[in-house]
């Protein structure tokens, strides 16, 4: 942990060397997700609701997913760009170091410009918390925090899978984007509106709905089921098979030789 903190400070310092570039990237990150927000806004200018969800409710969902994703992306970016680590032989160097390789991959890249997205999520959330008309009791605030945490763990798990596949293919597989970037893009609306099959898929296969949909129903008072509190916690378990996959990948690893 101490080591990670050191890496964190190094990354922070190195990114602050190019302040303008960092700042522009930061704004860019912000604007990209802003255009997605604008898309949602325009849709609701035309339609008042979608399958019973109001604009404020969808925004709440949007901000939770975006926040979870940006946290995962900021810290687990090393896994997201793992292709380069594999293909330039960097991973050999990681293997010989007397440290856990997950920690080292995590620490290899900490991209703080991603905070642009996080900030966007925070602003939207700040707007939605009063606008949604939800009475914010303590249990709901707690649930909101659990949802975001669980979400960033699940997204990190997806990044780990993405990286683990590189052990076998030495290249990232583009279709994984459907679950990471796609999860973020399409997760801006509750997964139920895409139909039953999609919801089932995102419940049992890629468990994004466990933090995005079921507890969300409790949050917006569409359901009283207290068990929905457990769903995001169950979702966190998803990280275990991901890590297992990673471990088998590491065993399988052959250097590319460069």
């Amino acid at each position: 942990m101490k080591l990670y903190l050191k890496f964190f400070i190094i990354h922070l310092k190195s990114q602050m060397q190019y302040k303008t570039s960092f700042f522009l990237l930061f704004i860019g990150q912000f604007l990209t997700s802003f255009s997605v927000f604008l898309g949602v806004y325009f849709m609701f200018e035309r339609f008042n609701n979608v399958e019973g969800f109001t604009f404020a409710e969808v925004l709440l969902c949007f901000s939770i997913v975006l926040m979870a994703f940006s946290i995962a992306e900021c810290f687990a970016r090393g896994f997201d760009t793992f292709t380069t680590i594999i293909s330039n032989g960097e991973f050999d160097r990681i293997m010989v170091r007397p440290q856990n390789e997950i920690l080292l991959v995590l620490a290899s890249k900490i991209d703080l410009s991603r905070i642009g997205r996080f900030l966007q999520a925070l602003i939207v959330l700040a707007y939605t918390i009063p606008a949604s008309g939800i009475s914010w009791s303590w249990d709901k605030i707690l649930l909101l925090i659990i949802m975001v945490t669980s979400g960033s763990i699940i997204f990190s798990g997806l990044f780990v899978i993405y990286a683990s596949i590189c052990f076998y293919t030495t290249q990232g597989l583009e279709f994984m984007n459907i679950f990471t970037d796609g999860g973020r893009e399409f997760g801006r609306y509750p997964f139920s509106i895409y139909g039953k099959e999609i919801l089932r898929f995102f419940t049992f296969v890629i468990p994004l709905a466990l933090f995005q949909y079921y507890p969300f129903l409790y949050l917006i008072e569409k359901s009283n089921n207290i068990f929905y509190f457990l769903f995001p916690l169950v979702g966190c378990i998803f990280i275990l098979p991901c890590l297992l996959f990673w471990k088998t990948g590491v065993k399988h690893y052959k250097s590319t030789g460069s």
Partner: protein
Amino acid sequence: MNSKKYLSFFRITFSSGIQYRAALGGTVTQFAWGSMNLLLYKAFYATDAAKFPMSFEALSSYIWLQQAFISMLFLWFLDNEIFNLIRNGNVAYELVRPLNLYNMWFIKSVATRLAKVVLRCFPILIIAYLLPSPYGLSLPVDLFSFIYFLITLFLALMVVCAFCMLIYITTFYTLNPSGVRFITLSLTEFLTGAIIPIPFFPEGFKKIIELTPFSSMQNIPLRVYSGDLSGFEMYKGISLQIFWLVTLIVIGKLWMKKALKKTVIQGG
């Protein structure tokens, strides 16, 4: 004589672009992306069909064509080679060649985009065509609308490239293009109808956007195909495309001339 040079330059770039990217993974991704988008619109359609600004079939065609021609019509797919040329000073070699730099890069962009699309579009188009109506890609209404589709698609590609040229030229001034590029693109991509089609914009805003070059990009061909844009509106669209193409090229050429005058080649 001159046009022969450009033609062979086009051929070289095109065939080198077609070498790699046997893009099966890409097709799967785009198919999933398109399907999810359609399901999303279906939910809105089910909620209030009367407020839908176009027919659902037209929207389906729009989304599938968008996925099929994504690397041709999206501003994001810029040519990194050109950025590197400017940054590492190799642009000097380009200037030595007996070709106009603007024309050369313009052709390079067109060829790269076409090469990418030729590889990628057919699997998507075929699968989308096989999907049941209203979710599939419908056939064009008649031969004429198909020809108009091809014309507007071609013009759209040209407008996209002419706009991208302006982004390349800014690199002469800033050297580190990623920031400028990132910000310009995230602002403009939305206006082209990449995230939601322009007909879904609020009325007042839509009227303004329709006059800008951004609506001359993917918006026009993808709607001409399904007949959503036809008759007078279509001719208006085509005239706007031509107008913006000429304007953007003129601005680009003048600006490039100015930029090259003060260019300092980054050491060797």
